[in-house]
């Protein structure tokens, strides 16, 4: 007889104490939960016992600090600072104080006129635990915090006080302005006469031996050993090969022996010496009277025959003529330099060719080597006078930098925060053993 399927019969089939009996699935759930706790806690305890602090790291350290990855306390010298930061709302509370960084690094000041209270702590700008990034790659927001509305301890600044972004056109408030030199339309004040257009003529210039030679920018502008900047222009290295004629004098007597490219006093002394030697060697042809008796010989120096008065007059006469050629003539020193007669001597104005133009930023020519020089220095081939500054405008930089999918345009791409010239000398205080993990 089958069991009827009414409510009563169905209810009678149920064991009313079933909920008291452990159910395998429910028990398994508890077992799994217990196992999960054991695994999680066991992993943490094992890490602590075995001294593995890496698992608690908030992220991989930068390459420079990777050796401290298992020793948090090397940098985190203050405990519970995040908790204090949370409780107090003071975002400047850091478990890594400046002292921890300064134990190894210098961190020289940014500007003399900076306001001390506005200067961020090391850890505020240099964010660690972000992987193998360069810590000096500080985000723009850190710079803009001050440079968005620049204030100085003296109340004045030579810099644009509101700079927020680089990539825009430069016409809006907060855009990075044009380079100061170009903005103020300052001329190149170098005391040297250089005509870039002539040097870069397509048909070339007269080279050594009168042969035509086509010059390029790199014929004179040679990168330094770091390939970052260009070496200072140097006469012997960059000019003398072609411009040796400017220092020649009295070619009948001294052919192939130009004057040295030195100060006028040295040039004059060299010329006097050469004419005096010439007079001694050719005293008869000069109809000179007998020379006076030789003075006492100075020990260590060869005995020299003094010139007669007639000889000395001849030397002075020749010297005056040569000086007029070299110092006063258009083809001598004046060909390139500003030469002025002084009270007792000629004066050549110091060339004052700047080694670097943008002293508040950094640049690397090597990184731009895929470009032709005139892509940036576009006026170079047409420039005829020295006073023209051939720096590219910031708009030239903006063609690539700061654009979407273009080259980087963040502050630290060109600017350094710390004044590296103030970094301390070598010979730090740590030992190798102290640095090893």
């Amino acid at each position, binding site marked *: *007889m*089958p*069991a009827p*399927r009414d409510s009563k019969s*169905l209810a009678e*089939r*149920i*064991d009313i*104490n*079933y*909920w008291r*009996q452990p*159910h395998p*699935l429910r028990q*398994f*759930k508890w077992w*799994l*939960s217990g*196992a*999960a*706790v054991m*695994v*999680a*806690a066991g992993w*943490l305890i094992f890490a602590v016992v075995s001294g593995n602090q*890496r*698992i*608690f*790291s*908030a*992220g*991989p350290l930068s390459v420079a600090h990777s050796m401290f990855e298992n020793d*948090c306390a090397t940098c*985190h010298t203050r*405990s*519970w600072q*995040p*908790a204090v*930061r*949370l409780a107090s*709302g003071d*975002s400047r509370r850091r*478990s890594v104080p400046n002292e921890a960084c300064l134990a190894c690094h210098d961190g020289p000041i940014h500007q003399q006129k900076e306001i001390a209270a506005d200067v*961020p702590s090391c850890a*505020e*700008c240099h*964010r660690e*635990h*972000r992987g193998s990034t360069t810590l000096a790659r500080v*985000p723009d*927001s*850190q710079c803009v*915090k001050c440079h968005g509305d620049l204030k100085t301890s003296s109340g004045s600044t030579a810099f644009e006080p509101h700079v927020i972004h680089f990539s825009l056109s430069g016409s809006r408030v907060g855009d990075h302005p044009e380079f100061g030199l170009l903005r103020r339309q300052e001329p190149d004040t170098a005391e040297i006469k250089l005509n870039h257009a002539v040097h870069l003529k397509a048909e070339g210039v007269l080279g050594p031996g009168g042969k035509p030679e086509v010059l390029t920018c790199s014929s004179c502008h040679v990168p330094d050993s770091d390939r970052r900047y260009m070496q200072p222009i140097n006469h012997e290295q960059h000019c003398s090969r072609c411009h040796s004629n400017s220092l020649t004098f009295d070619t009948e007597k001294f052919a192939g022996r130009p004057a040295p490219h030195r100060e006028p006093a040295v040039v004059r002394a060299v010329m006097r010496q050469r004419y005096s030697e010439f007079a001694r060697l050719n005293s008869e042809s000069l109809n000179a009277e007998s020379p006076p008796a030789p003075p006492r010989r100075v020990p260590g120096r060869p005995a020299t025959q003094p010139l007669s008065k007639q000889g000395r007059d001849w030397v002075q006469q020749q010297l005056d003529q040569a000086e007029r050629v070299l110092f006063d003539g258009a083809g001598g020193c004046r060909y390139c330099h500003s030469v002025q007669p002084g009270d007792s001597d000629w004066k050549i104005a110091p060339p004052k060719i700047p080694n670097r133009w943008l002293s508040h930023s950094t640049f690397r020519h090597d990184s731009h080597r895929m470009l032709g020089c005139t892509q940036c220095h576009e006026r170079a081939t047409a420039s005829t006078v020295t006073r023209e500054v051939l720096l590219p405008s910031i708009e030239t930089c903006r063609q690539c930098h700061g654009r979407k999918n273009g080259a980087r345009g963040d502050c630290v791409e060109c600017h350094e925060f710390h004044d590296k010239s103030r970094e301390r000398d070598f010979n730090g205080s740590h030992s190798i053993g102290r640095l090893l993990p």
Partner: protein
Amino acid sequence: MVATGALTAGAAAGYAFYAANYPGGPSGGSWPGLLYGIAGSGAMLFAGLLSARKQVPTWRLGRAQTWLKGHIWLGLLSAPLILFHSGFHWGGLLEKVLWIVLAFIIASGMIGLILQQFLPRFMTKLVPMETIYEQIPHVCSVMQSNADTLVASICGPLGTEPPKEAGEEKPKRKPKDVQPLEGSGPLKDFYLCDVRPFLNGQYSRTGLLSSSSRAASVIEQVRIMLPPTLHETLDQLALFCEERRQLALQARLHHWLHGWLFVHIPLSVALLVLGVAHAVMALWY
């Protein structure tokens, strides 16, 4: 849902402002980042309290449905809050493990939520003979006992031990000794060989009686061998088999309905342990 959406939108707006204006960008250790971390942890903790709430069903702590809604929506809200806390960084090894665990918890929870939306209706439709899941073995045992009694009353003693009921050492009742009816041999054989093991044995989805159509075919073959007076008994056995199939289906659906909890709950507990470790170390350093 509206409150969760509004809270997520508010948190996202706050994060956008914080990310755009906080020098150095967002991070878990920043003041706003810590606040997001506390909010996210709080949401997760509340979600975890559902289990505790279930342990004390008689306490007057609000309706179970409200707790479940809070569990679901605050649990979901915790994900964006923790993302905002981290500033969309994965962090170190411990944090990465936390992310993976959280992802599995949320994924398993969402799978569970989706399954809970349609499987109960599916079960109501497909399993009209549904019983309490934990009682299925007991009901099968009772069903077998009833079938034993039914068949023994017609075919005589079956020569089998009556089924033991859960928690009992001795059989509940003993079938009466009766003389077998003429022509009941095939019924007895069919019952002992196929039906009886099917009712209370290990259920196999490929068994002879596990499929309705196959079972109907077999029963029709047995019916041919039986005198008409025994057809009613055969139909009753077919009914037992149908109920057994439905209970097996119910068990299967129940596993789908609750299986995700075997991932969800253990990982939630692990997340709690690892999360506490993360919080302590983060606040320390």
